[in-house]
């Protein structure tokens, strides 16, 4: 078992290294002169060549690819993401601030999504093939087709403009989080419902269940131990997959609702060619994914050592 | 001629075949007999070059055996053909692969010899009977005139009547074409009827080998006798005086 776990951790490490390499390579090959863009953003005027060269040297663009890569990677492993090319401030604290705005939104969105999808999935599977079941599937299909930004705009139109019940832009009050979280939650609930529903159905239909019933294992114990455990597998997968969805959704929703957070952090960094910031966002989100996926893999092995690859 | 010299084949760290030695001359038939799990399929895979031998070598006329492009007739004819392609397409693959020209006359002759009507080949594998499919398999194996043909339980998917018939067709074609035949089978009766030599495989080793008649009438080992007696009991082998 420990060899298996070690293998998983090793794999995750390799993947992380690969993503770091890809991220770095992308920004390295960005067209245009990044030094120029940085200088422009920093000094707000078109700068003479001497200044631009100085910026380039400072940012480390002069060195070769691999030297620059290892020079960049080293500090990252210790959590130092360098300084913003534009403001000169450390990236990490600003990134943390941005995350502190995004995380509550993502969690609120997840909560709303679960509030909608869990009861819906449970009700739907009570009578498989029935009206509620088919309705849930239809709703989930439509939900998966709706672009999140459109949903957000429609909600703004309805609740903020038309009815004036809720505020739309910015993050001044906690009421400001309602619409964004609702957008996120509705979007997430579509896929959550579908996956929960099929997970529960599969677990309910397992061949061993009638055998247990005949032996007198009671209904609720059955649900709890066996259905729950087998349903846990796809549910855990769901959380891993939905994390990606949540992150992207939060970024998109922040941009629509003009909230501070990772979304605006990323977009403004890209526009200003502030590579350390861009790299930081990408690395952090990737690291989050890989870690979550690793934990999911480990959890799978612990729940049921017989299971092989959990990926579809 | 085929020479298998002291080969050992491993799967992972476990040896599946130990110290196997065989030889086979053109026109002759060698039957490899044994229970399931004895290593018969591994032996075939090794001779075909699909598995490597950790020790020893397999040669045809002192060249690596793959150079003579041995053909294989599989046990289950249905999976031996791509279900979406016509039988004709599959049959001609060996010719196409060698970039050779098709000898239509030869194709017709072989079809006649296997009692296959030419328009049968236009059909798909799912549209013919198992017996027909197996005969098409033999056709494909022979089309490019290989000097060595391997048969993996060629009759077990067929019913009893078809078995005898197909076995005879194979034997007749061998007389005509002159190929060397290595037949893997668990059916001692088949081996007795059609093989020149028999090798008994057990747990990865050759228990005994020799002329077919001798193996049946006077098995040298206890295991050989067990096999023979079982075959008598099942009726697949008839007592010969």
């Amino acid at each position, binding site marked *: 078992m420990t060899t298996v776990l070690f293998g998983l951790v090793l*794999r995750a490490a390799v*993947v*992380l290294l*690969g*993503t770091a390499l*890809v991220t770095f390579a*992308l*920004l390295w090959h*960005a*067209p*245009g002169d990044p030094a120029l863009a940085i200088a422009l953003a920093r000094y707000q005027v078109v700068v003479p060549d001497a200044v631009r060269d100085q910026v380039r040297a400072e940012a480390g663009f002069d060195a070769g690819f691999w030297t620059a890569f290892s020079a960049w990677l080293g500090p990252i492993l210790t959590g130092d993401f360098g300084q913003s090319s534009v403001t000169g401030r450390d990236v990490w604290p600003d990134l943390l601030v941005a995350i502190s705005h995004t995380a509550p939104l993502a969690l609120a969105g997840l909560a709303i999504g679960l509030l909608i999808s869990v009861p819906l999935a449970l009700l739907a599977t009570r009578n498989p093939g029935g009206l509620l079941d088919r309705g849930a599937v239809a709703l989930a*299909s*439509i939900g*998966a*087709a709706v*672009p999140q*930004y*459109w949903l957000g*705009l429609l909600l*703004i*139109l309805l609740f903020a*403009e*038309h009815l004036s019940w809720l505020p739309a832009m910015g993050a001044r009050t906690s009421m400001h989080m309602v619409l964004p979280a609702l957008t996120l939650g509705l979007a997430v609930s579509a896929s959550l419902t579908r996956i929960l529903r099929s997970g529960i159905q599969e677990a309910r239909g397992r061949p061993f269940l009638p055998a247990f019933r005949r032996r007198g294992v009671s209904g609720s114990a059955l649900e709890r131990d066996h259905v729950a455990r087998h349903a846990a597998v796809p549910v855990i997968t769901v959380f891993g997959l939905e994390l*990606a969805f949540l*992150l*992207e959704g939060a*970024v*998109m929703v922040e*941009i629509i609702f003009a909230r501070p957070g990772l979304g605006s952090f*990323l*977009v403004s960094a*890209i526009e200003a060619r502030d590579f350390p910031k861009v790299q930081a966002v*990408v690395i952090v*989100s*990737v690291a989050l*994914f*890989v870690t979550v996926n690793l934990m999911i893999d480990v959890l799978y092995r612990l729940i049921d050592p017989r299971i092989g690859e959990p*990926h579809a | 001629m085929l020479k298998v010299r002291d080969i050992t084949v491993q799967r992972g760290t476990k040896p599946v075949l130990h110290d196997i030695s065989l030889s086979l001359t053109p026109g002759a038939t060698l039957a490899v007999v044994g229970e399931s799990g004895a290593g018969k399929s591994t032996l075939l895979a090794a001779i*075909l070059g*699909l598995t490597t031998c950790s020790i020893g070598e397999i040669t045809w006329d002192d060249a690596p055996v793959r150079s003579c*492009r041995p*053909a*294989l007739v*599989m046990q*289950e004819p249905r*999976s*031996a*053909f*791509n279900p*979406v*392609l016509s039988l004709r*397409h*599959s049959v001609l*693959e*060996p010719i*196409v*692969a*060698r970039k050779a020209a098709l000898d239509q006359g030869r194709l017709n002759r072989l079809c006649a010899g296997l009692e296959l009507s030419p328009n049968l080949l236009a059909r798909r594998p799912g549209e013919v009977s198992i017996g027909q499919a197996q005969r098409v398999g033999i056709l*494909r194996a022979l089309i*490019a005139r290989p000097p060595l043909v391997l048969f993996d339980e060629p009759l077990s998917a067929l019913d009893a009547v078809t078995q005898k018939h197909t076995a005879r067709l194979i034997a007749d074609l061998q007389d005509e074409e002159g190929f060397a035949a290595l037949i893997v089978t668990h059916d001692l009766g088949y081996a007795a009827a059609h093989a020149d030599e028999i090798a008994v495989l057990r747990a990865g080793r050759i228990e005994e080998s020799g002329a077919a008649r001798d193996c049946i009438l006077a098995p040298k080992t206890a295991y050989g006798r067990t096999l023979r007696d079982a075959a008598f009991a099942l009726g697949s082998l008839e007592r010969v005086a």
Partner: protein
Amino acid sequence: MRSVGVLAAIFIALALLGPSIAPHDPTAINIPARLSPPSATWWLGTDALGRDILSRLLHGARWSLGLAFIVSVIGLCMGTLAGLVAALGGKYADWIVMRATDTFLSFPDLVAAVVIAGVLGAGTGSLIFALCVTGWMRYARVARGIGLSLRSRGYVVQARLAGLSPLSIARWHYLPALLPSLTVVWTGMFARAILGISALGFLGFGVQPPTPEWGTMLLDARIHMRSTPLQMIWPGLAVVTCVLAINLVGDALRDALAH
């Protein structure tokens, strides 16, 4: 199944014929008529520059649907190739391709696409690049799985024994077996590409104005949300209907495959 096929046909027709049946020139600016509500002349009204929304929608189909089609097909080719290399190329090739797949799968879709499109400069080229680079992995996994199981199939062994070239083996024996499953994956990726292209367009990183693309149209509409809220409905509705139709086709295909 049939109704779903009809739907799909309608969309293909839309994408191909759209521009020809559009009543007006989508780029014709007509300031006096800007932001007009739906009328006989302009069935869905006009946008901020007086351009006919219906015509822009129809022309936009070429971009939102057509570009998505191209992106998903390129992804299909890249991913299938990678998957086959992994299945047929031996242990090292398999390991490398699988780690690459894991690596690219670890990038969140939208974030990666935004970063790529943003860094390489907004425009159609970087849009295609961004979506392809983030979209080939699912094909690779499926192709590898099927490829591995096919390797030991009887007729594949026979083809190898016959000495058939790897290219011919791939073409005659692997592709027919891969096509059904890959098509199902492709429908999902096609839908994803539609959503991705319009999302990036909405964020300003995708197709650039004045090209009518449903996402950028939404971006325009958002600015005038107060005065002409209706304008926001149409592009979004177009995206939803197309994606829904494609997902339904995909589901029907998957069900058909399972039988």
